[in-house]
């Protein structure tokens, strides 16, 4: 019986191998065209950013510009009328950095409490965290708008910069999942040494959670840098605008826009996000996978 079985095994493995080669070809036949499709919008953006205006409207459209016009970047940045990209970029940067710090501080505290502290009522409040994880802020803007109006915060950065200091359910959940994986023994040892919760959090949890905190920082960076709804809602005067709103103000009526300059500025606006994504990709992928699977 034994030799026959081995023979069977070999033939089985062979057929799998043959199938595997075809599988690889099919996989690449899909992977590569899809990859090109995903990059195409960027190619269109950059190539338009490099063209003189008359070539932008040329037919047939060309992905590689005939003449490269680097001045587009400087001209676009210079803006026109009241649109000032230096101010907008500075505002975006300021809000984004503040919000990353605010989110990290407030969410770390809450996540530690939910992961490691015992209290009556904890399950109740954690259920609220889970329920509000999916609540889109857009559904709440009208009353939030009144609130900020009453506080006299309209046309300032406060409606954008204050709420992040009060936590975000999604981040609290992600960080709690990570905190649960930190071994109990470490905490016990620290407690024996007389450390309080503040010290345990600062000296054990935060150093051990750098990858998770990096993930949240990247999420927060991208979310805030791309945020359009909030600034559009709360900001009026040109001096306080953020980058996405500036870009839209650049957009004139349909079809009557300096596309080459607009795409040049759009390219500049996208670069920071691309850099953060490329350098932080490892953390990013892990963080998203955690949100869906280990929940």
């Amino acid at each position: 019986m034994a030799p026959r079985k081995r023979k069977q095994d070999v033939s089985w493995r062979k057929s799998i191998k043959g199938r595997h080669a075809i599988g690889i070809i099919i996989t690449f036949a899909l992977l590569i065209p899809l990859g090109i499709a995903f990059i195409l919008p960027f190619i269109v953006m950059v190539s338009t950013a490099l063209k003189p205006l008359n070539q932008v409207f040329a037919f047939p459209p060309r992905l590689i510009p005939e003449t490269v016009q680097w001045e587009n970047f400087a001209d676009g940045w210079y803006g026109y009328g009241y649109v000032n990209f230096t101010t907008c970029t500075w505002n975006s940067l300021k809000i984004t950095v503040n919000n990353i710090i605010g989110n990290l501080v407030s969410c770390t505290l809450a996540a530690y409490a939910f992961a490691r502290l015992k209290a009556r009522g904890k399950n109740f409040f954690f259920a609220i965290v889970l329920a509000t994880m999916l609540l889109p802020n857009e559904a709440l803007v009208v009353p939030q708008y009144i609130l900020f109006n009453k506080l006299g915060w309209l046309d300032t950065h406060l409606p954008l910069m204050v709420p992040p200091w009060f936590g975000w359910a999604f981040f609290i959940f992600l960080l709690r999942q990570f905190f649960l994986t930190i071994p109990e023994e470490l905490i016990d040892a620290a407690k024996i040494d007389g450390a309080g919760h503040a010290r345990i959090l600062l000296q054990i949890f935060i150093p051990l959670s750098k990858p998770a905190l990096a993930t949240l920082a990247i999420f927060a960076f991208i979310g805030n840098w791309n945020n359009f709804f909030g600034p559009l809602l709360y900001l009026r005067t040109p001096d306080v605008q953020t980058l996405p709103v500036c870009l839209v103000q650049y957009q004139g009526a349909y079809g009557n826009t300096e596309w080459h300059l607009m795409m040049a500025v759009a390219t500049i606006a996208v670069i920071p996000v691309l850099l953060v994504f490329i350098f932080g990709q490892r953390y990013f992928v892990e963080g998203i996978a955690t949100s869906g699977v280990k929940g």
Partner: protein
Amino acid sequence: MLRKYFPAISASARREERIFYLFILPWLFGLVVFSIGPVFGMLGLSFTDWRISLDNLQFVGLENYTKLFADPIFWTSVGNTLYIVVGRVVFGTSFALLLAILLNQKVPGIPFFRAVYYLPTVTAGVAVALVWIWIFNPRLGILNYSLKQIGIQGPNWIFSKTWVKPSLILMSLFSVGPNMIILLAGLQGVPKELYESAEIDGAGHWAKFKNVTLPMLSPVLFFVIIISVVSSFQNFTEIRVMTEGGPGESSNVLIWYLWENAFIFLQLGVAAAVAWIMFVILMALTGIQFRVGRRWVYYEGEA
């Protein structure tokens, strides 16, 4: 009575409890002020004639709601929203699953492709929405030019009443990154033994997919569908930048209808009513999905 829920505890446990509440205090404060407060405030304001100022508010009962239900544009925007939600859930989830399956193959270069497929998601925003206007340009855009090369006369995309919604759905396929990654992690969590035993039973690719992958993936798939529905309601940027609800009202979705009423027509009472309806729809959808999900989702360890 209260004792039952708050049993007496030791002094050290009480101290820990105080620290717990101290640590969650910022979040709790934010929850009350920025979420729960607004939800109820919105409900209250939807019964008033609130326009610009909050002074002299008149209670108008259900007038905002009756006005809303009598407005054909409201129903158009409900229909448009449903169209886009269904389209994004069906096509977006299938597409994300296809990408996840591709990225789960044992071939070289996967991290590179994963990054490339994720890229449009992180850059989704005003800058890329502007590029898409250009891609969708019926005469000069790259999309119709490419279609022409293979002999197809492309439609007017976002400038056409019939094609604007499919265009937005098509564009949303480029930002399925998170769903793709979540599904990929789900695929990698399927125990290899299950595939091996299915192969021994002589199962082909399709049979393995249908009988092993899908059931094992169902909790993750279910989660992905929920986020897709919720995020489809939030597609404000594309609408504001690319179509402003047009042409006609053919891409007027609820979030745009809300925005127009609140900040363009300054009918804030009506907007509050819309916001409340949206909130109820979202909560109901999530609830229904949880219920339905429980029935068809396979959880490991269940009989």
